[in-house]
């Protein structure tokens, strides 16, 4: 028994792991809570695009020795502006324009990152370096996380009203424009926080995974946000244990656990819904695994 306890507590005696744990906690707070809104507003594609497109910012930061957080911040702004400016050609469609911007920016980032002048560590940029965060990084990330959480708290009513029914939102005093911009900015901030630990190819795991899992289990928004945060932390801790004992890459393990948690919850919740369906008929296509529909939400 004491061996098991020993195994449980041992990793956290090391500074690296303690900081990684703090990082995972921040990821959970930010990704879990914001993730619920990302799902509600169907912004997963935008979130992933932003994450990919900020890569050159990271590369420039690595090249010039500036903090990664700063590079990520600038990268996000550039990416958002690029999508806004170039995304309007009608013959092409928005998704395609976004894909064009991402691949061009990514290409640029790779040229920078693989150039001889650049320090090695490309994989850290791509997949995160959750075991390599410094105290300063944590402090900055923590500050950003506080900003995100406070904003979510203040905007909760607006976001709820606009997300629920955009067309009538104005009539009850909500502002769709504000909600959209605020969400995109917050996603940008959250991505900047999360990119350190998970890298920009894996960041979407924390932005979407825990929230999607929570959505399978819970129907009301605030409990969903709380549950998502908890699940994110849980999966993150699991990932860190895996990394510690199996020696697997840190960021990938954390991201992998978040995905696995979702995949495991998916069939279980589908089973529960099937049983509930027999009592109350509802619409749904037979060949799609049913995801929670927002009409069930008591918001």
């Amino acid at each position, binding site marked *: 028994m004491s061996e098991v306890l020993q195994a449980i507590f041992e990793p956290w005696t090391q500074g690296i792991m303690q900081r990684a744990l703090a990082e995972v906690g921040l990821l959970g707070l930010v990704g879990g809570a914001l993730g619920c809104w990302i799902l509600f507003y169907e912004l997963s594609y935008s979130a992933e695009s932003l994450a990919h497109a900020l890569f050159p910012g990271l590369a420039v930061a690595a090249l010039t020795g500036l903090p990664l957080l700063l590079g990520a911040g600038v990268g996000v702004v550039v990416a958002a502006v690029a999508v806004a400016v170039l995304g309007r050609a009608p013959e092409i469609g928005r998704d395609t324009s976004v894909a064009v911007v991402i691949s061009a920016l990514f290409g640029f980032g790779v040229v920078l990152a693989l150039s001889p002048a650049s320090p090695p560590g490309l994989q850290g940029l791509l997949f995160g370096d959750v075991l390599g965060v410094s105290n300063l990084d944590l402090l900055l990330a923590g500050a950003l996380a506080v900003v995100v959480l406070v904003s979510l708290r203040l905007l909760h009513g607006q976001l709820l009203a606009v997300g629920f029914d955009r*067309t009538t939102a104005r009539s009850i005093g909500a502002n769709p424009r504000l909600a959209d911009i605020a969400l995109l900015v917050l996603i940008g901030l959250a991505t900047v926080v999360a990119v350190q630990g998970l890298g920009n190819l894996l960041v979407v795991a924390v932005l979407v995974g825990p929230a999607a899992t929570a959505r399978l289990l819970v129907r009301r928004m605030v409990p969903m946000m709380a549950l998502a945060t908890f699940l994110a932390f849980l999966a993150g801790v699991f990932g860190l244990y895996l990394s510690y004992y199996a020696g697997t890459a840190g960021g990938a393990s954390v991201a992998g656990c978040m995905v696995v948690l979702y995949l495991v919850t998916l069939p279980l919740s589908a089973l529960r819904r099937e049983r509930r369906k027999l009592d109350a008929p509802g619409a749904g296509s037979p060949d799609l695994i049913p995801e929670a529909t927002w009409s069930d939400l008591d918001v």
Partner: protein
Amino acid sequence: MENGKDNPYLAEVSGLSAGYAGRTVLRDIGFRVEAGSMVGVLGPNGGGKTTLFKVLLGELAPFEGSVSVGARCGVVPQTERSRIDYPVSVLDVALMGTLGRLPWWKRPGRVERRNALDALGEVGLRDLSDRQFGELSGGQRQRVLVARALVQDARLLLLDEPFSGLDGPSVKRLSLLLDRLSSEGRGLMVSIHDLEQVRDWDQVLCLNQRQVAFGKPSEVLTRPVIEVTYGTRVVMLGDGNSGRKTGILPAHHHDGEGRRGDV
């Protein structure tokens, strides 16, 4: 599927009920479409009009009842649903009607091109055959889609709200075209919201998840029928002086799919 010419009915439906997994959208539907007749299909959005069309086209199998469609059936969708950003000319769209009749590896040849141009001529757009589809006005695009159905040689045409979004003159032009098509012996089922227009047609079918009425406009277009069909009270407005009264239906919401406006 093709009956002999001696069957006067292009489509016969009785006891039909249909829907999607776990949900019945239509029940107790029964009507017949004669050759050369125009049938207006009235009803609120979500009331089953699109589902009915899908059943008639053979895309959706009914839960119960019988459906017999004795002629080739062509559908003319709303122009808003087709892509105006597509790199296709007006002629290209009309030629799409030949898809079902040519094997894959055959390109449309001179015969097919002539048919398509003739069909465009019938709808009054032969001169525009070389233009980009997206450059045309809403009314013109709608007529190109009618031409596509004509190229298919469809004797029964299903038109899904063809008048929505069109201005007055376009409505008139389309209306004349449809009259001419039906006088050539084709059958037309047109879903529509304008009660005024429907009064001149041959039959009216009122749907609101079930069949409320089917018959001649003069018999069907009564206040109680309309109220049941649309689920709202008809508001009677008096015309101050002459004492005449006009009934209006409160506006209905389009479903949240967000229609693209006419460009």
